[in-house]
């Protein structure tokens, strides 16, 4: 299938995502420039991690106005697959393509470490290659990953299964100690109501090779490939 990976000013993991897709998974992937409108015929558009516009004001607040975001909103509106990783997740929230917002980590400091995640809903285009309840080891690296949303909205999201990933301990159970950034309900990744837009704080592209943080991240990319058929 064909992937598109957006580069905003200050994007950092765009090249890493392209590396994982092309070199590791042998996929066709094009780099998309934030000032362009075209999505280059991509079947899935990835908004990568990084510090777009220096994360000034609020993470993702400025990037959301890049010209390419209009095309991405249209693409998502037509049911196209969109995934935002870390800063990409923040941008999607700011752009209202995903519910909620991401704020300063509880510890107020940047955290880079590998965490354990539980797949909460494996019946989505982004998780179908994983088993329901499967545990994935992925790295996080962010200063603002504390997920918040209005209580009522959270309840509905849970009911609809929009929470796809949750931070858990090695035992697979969520706990305060296993919640690295203090996210509400230990939420690490969410989808929109249509399940064609997905945002997550952990970095699947940094868990794509055995010598570099394991291969659990491939589950996510594999799922998308299967969905795109």
């Amino acid at each position: 299938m064909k992937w598109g990976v957006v580069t905003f000013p200050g994007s950092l993991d765009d090249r890493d995502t392209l590396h994982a897709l092309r070199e590791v998974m042998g996929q066709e992937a094009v780099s998309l420039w934030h000032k362009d409108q075209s999505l280059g015929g991509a079947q899935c558009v990835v908004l990568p991690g990084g510090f777009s516009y220096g994360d000034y004001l609020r993470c993702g607040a400025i990037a959301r106005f890049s010209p390419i975001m209009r095309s991405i909103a249209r693409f998502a509106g037509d049911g196209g697959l969109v995934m935002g990783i870390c800063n990409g997740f923040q941008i999607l929230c700011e752009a209202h393509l995903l519910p909620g917002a991401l704020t300063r980590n509880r510890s107020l400091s940047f955290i880079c470490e590998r965490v354990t995640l539980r797949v909460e809903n494996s019946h989505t285009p982004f998780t179908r290659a994983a088993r329901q309840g499967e545990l994935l080891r992925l790295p996080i690296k962010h200063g603002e990953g504390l997920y918040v949303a209005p209580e009522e909205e959270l309840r509905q999201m849970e009911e609809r299964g929009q929470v796809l990933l949750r931070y858990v301990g090695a035992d697979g159970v969520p706990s305060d100690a296993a919640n690295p950034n203090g996210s509400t309900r230990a939420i690490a990744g969410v989808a929109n109501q249509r399940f064609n837009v997905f945002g997550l704080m952990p970095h699947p592209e940094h868990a794509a090779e055995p010598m570099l943080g394991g291969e659990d991240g491939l589950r996510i990319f594999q799922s998308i490939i299967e969905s795109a058929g």
Partner: protein
Amino acid sequence: MRVKVFVTPRQGILDPQGRAVEQALKSLGFDGINGVHVGRYIVLDLKAASADEARDAARRMCDELLANPLIEDYRFEVEPG
């Protein structure tokens, strides 16, 4: 004109920064602190024909960019000059 925008965390939204500052102040020996909230203070210098025009521009700036209504409240003051 000068527009001063005050962006504060919404009621009920966690304000870890506020809590951290409160802790820090207490550990420095300040007492009688009942709460601390940390927000953003944005000062804009605008060319505008009237205070109303400036007010109107400021409101749109806040709605579109300066604040995230989901987690933040904003308020602003317009000063001539």
